[in-house]
């Protein structure tokens, strides 16, 4: 594994190795000395073309706890408007002797393009509305903590699927781990070509959350941006909540051992009620806590060895 561009790049064995190592990394997080020497002498650059304080700091801490030198480079704003091509920007950074390049970009596919231009290992830290593989890894990690092996686990992902990079990575990764996924959204927020896609990958779709909610082991609620209203994707937040929110009423119909996840940031009261976010079945804080361990594990697996399989 040279890069982590898509959750689909990972085999089942590779996924499990990353998740297992993350367990050990998670232990380190609870120690007084939160430092491992594994990446000593290696340089990781967080190259962020889009702000994301949470993801950036999570990668930064992860790199530092593995003793890598971590540098943050903000390349916010369109490089088109600056007159510099993406390739130029990236090569400028990479030419400084970088071993790992963690890339966040507002445009889908940018990390995959970058991986063709540089020698460094590229980690996709979220690209446009495409993928966010480390988020999917930490979601799987969190669900495994609560549910054990995910083979056969029933997972529903609910919300703005069209614009979510989380859903694409989760679909691929959960598929690899053998989970049974159902995507739930109003038709306007389903990704295009979903019928062909779901048939090819063997996941289910539904427009009706109530039909699904009693049958799941894990429920992943995705953030719905209020701006989507202006795109006419749904009429009002109130209507969205009634149709697709994890309300108090729906919470009662969710299984007693089911897990509630949310990749954050939450719109309390829109896609998730305050009760749901804070109750015992909610693993939302666990997800945040797993973020650093997963990113440590990913950086270690990409940069810790000789690069041979």
């Amino acid at each position: 594994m040279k890069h982590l561009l898509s959750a689909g790049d990972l085999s089942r064995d590779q996924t499990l190795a990353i998740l297992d190592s993350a367990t050990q990394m998670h232990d380190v997080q609870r120690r007084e000395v939160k430092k491992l020497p594994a990446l000593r002498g290696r340089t990781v650059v967080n190259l962020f073309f889009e702000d994301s304080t949470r993801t950036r700091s999570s990668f930064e801490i992860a790199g530092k706890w593995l003793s890598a030198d971590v540098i943050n480079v903000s390349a916010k704003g369109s490089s088109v408007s600056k007159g510099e091509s993406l390739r130029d920007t990236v090569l400028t950074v990479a030419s400084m002797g970088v071993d790992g390049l963690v890339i966040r970009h507002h445009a889908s596919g940018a990390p995959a393009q970058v991986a063709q231009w540089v020698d460094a290992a590229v980690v996709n830290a979220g690209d446009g509305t495409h993928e966010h593989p480390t988020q999917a890894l930490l979601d799987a990690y969190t669900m495994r903590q609560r549910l054990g092996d995910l083979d056969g686990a029933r997972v529903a992902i609910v919300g703005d699927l069209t614009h979510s990079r989380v859903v694409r990575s989760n679909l691929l990764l959960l598929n690899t781990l053998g989970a049974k996924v159902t995507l739930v959204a109003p038709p306007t927020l389903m990704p295009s070509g979903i019928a062909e896609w779901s048939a090819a990958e063997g996941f289910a779709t539904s427009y009706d959350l109530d039909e699904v909610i009693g049958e799941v082991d894990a429920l992943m609620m995705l953030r719905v941006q209020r701006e989507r209203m202006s795109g006419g994707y749904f009429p009002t937040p109130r209507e969205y909540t009634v149709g697709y929110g994890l309300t108090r009423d729906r919470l009662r119909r969710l299984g007693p051992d089911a897990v509630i996840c949310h990749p954050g940031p939450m719109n309390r009261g829109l896609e998730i009620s305050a009760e749901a976010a804070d109750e015992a079945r909610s693993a939302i804080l666990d997800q945040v806590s797993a973020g650093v361990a997963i990113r440590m594990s990913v950086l270690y697996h990409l940069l810790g060895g000789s690069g041979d399989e």
Partner: protein
Amino acid sequence: MTSEMYVVRGAKVLGGKAADLLIEGGVIREVGTIDAPKKARVVDADGLVALPGLVDLHTHLREPGREDAETVATGSAAAAAGGFTAVLAMANTNPVTDTAEAADHILDLGRRAGLVDVQPVGAVTKSLAGQELAELGLMARSRAQVRVFSDDGRCVHDARLMRRALEYVKAFDGVISQHSQDPRLADGQACCHEGEISGRLGLPGWPAVAEDVIVARDVMLARHTGSRVHVAHVSTAGSVEVIRWAKAQGIAVTAEVTPHHLMLTTDLVEGYDPTFKVNPPLRPDEHVEELRKALADGTIDAVATDHAPHARHDKEHAFAEAAFGMLGLEQALQVVNTVMVQPGLMSWEQAAQAMSVNPARIARLEGHGRPLAAGEPANLALVDPAASVTIDAADSQSLSRNNPWHGRTLTGAVHATFLRGRPTYLDGEVQQ
């Protein structure tokens, strides 16, 4: 110069019987069996197909404004190497070709280059802004005698403005070439055919229906106004259906398809390579199949390249931010040969219709798209129909390298191009 004499020996005229052509004084003097006069230069065309010089309804030459990507001279060279004798230069330069002066300037640049007839396309609206009509009549009355008007790159989406433009150009037999893209259904971000692949890749979708609805609207406007409308770069099966219906109604609609939409499909964008980013986007197989059928049965009148050179640094962005467009002039005939003529979907005679006769007629270009017969202007291309050519982007007359066929093997090669009796491309060299 035109006093030079050539004898083209043994070319299959329009793919038919082999004949010799005597060229002198810019015209074809004789077709048949010819004893070459001593002073004539003989071009051995044994096994080659002679076609009327190709005409491209849709070329972006980038001059003025982006001479780093292409100039009229380099674009003309690419055209000559591709078998073209005339190209229509789209108006989206900087400044925009929206005045008579701008149109004449393009015409003069073309004449100076001297490799193909460069005929300017005029903008429909001032600065391509889609707000008010450009000086269509003055462009029509200019030395360039503009007949084709287009805001290409943008759709004239205001129905009232489109109606007025269609009506107005009737006075001088003009035609509106429409870039059919409903900007609300496919906005500026839209960059990948909307479907499973755009869904998986998370790329903003460009749905086929965004083209279909504009084509449907425009043919109804053409019926209402009794004007000519031309559909640029048809890319969808839905558009084909509408155009087929409209033609059956007797509506004055014509249409073009690009070489890339005849051959390349959506799945090529899966690696996010911006070389394959084009507007309208590459479509799935089922659309490509319909486009080929429509070209073969005449529903689509012409092949036009939409040759769109871009500097490297305008393509080396994230896919969604990279420039739209791909090269086409040098490979157009090869692509048509590979996907239409060789598989038997089209004869060479039909190919000549689609790549020369029809586009010349649509653009009202005199002297092009004429029969290869005695007394006609000597505009012709000689094509080796069986050559197998592996395309190398570096090997191009264009200043740009955004060649989507790089690394592919195509069948056919242009051997020579003559513009009014003078070879513009011969022996693998552009004849400056």
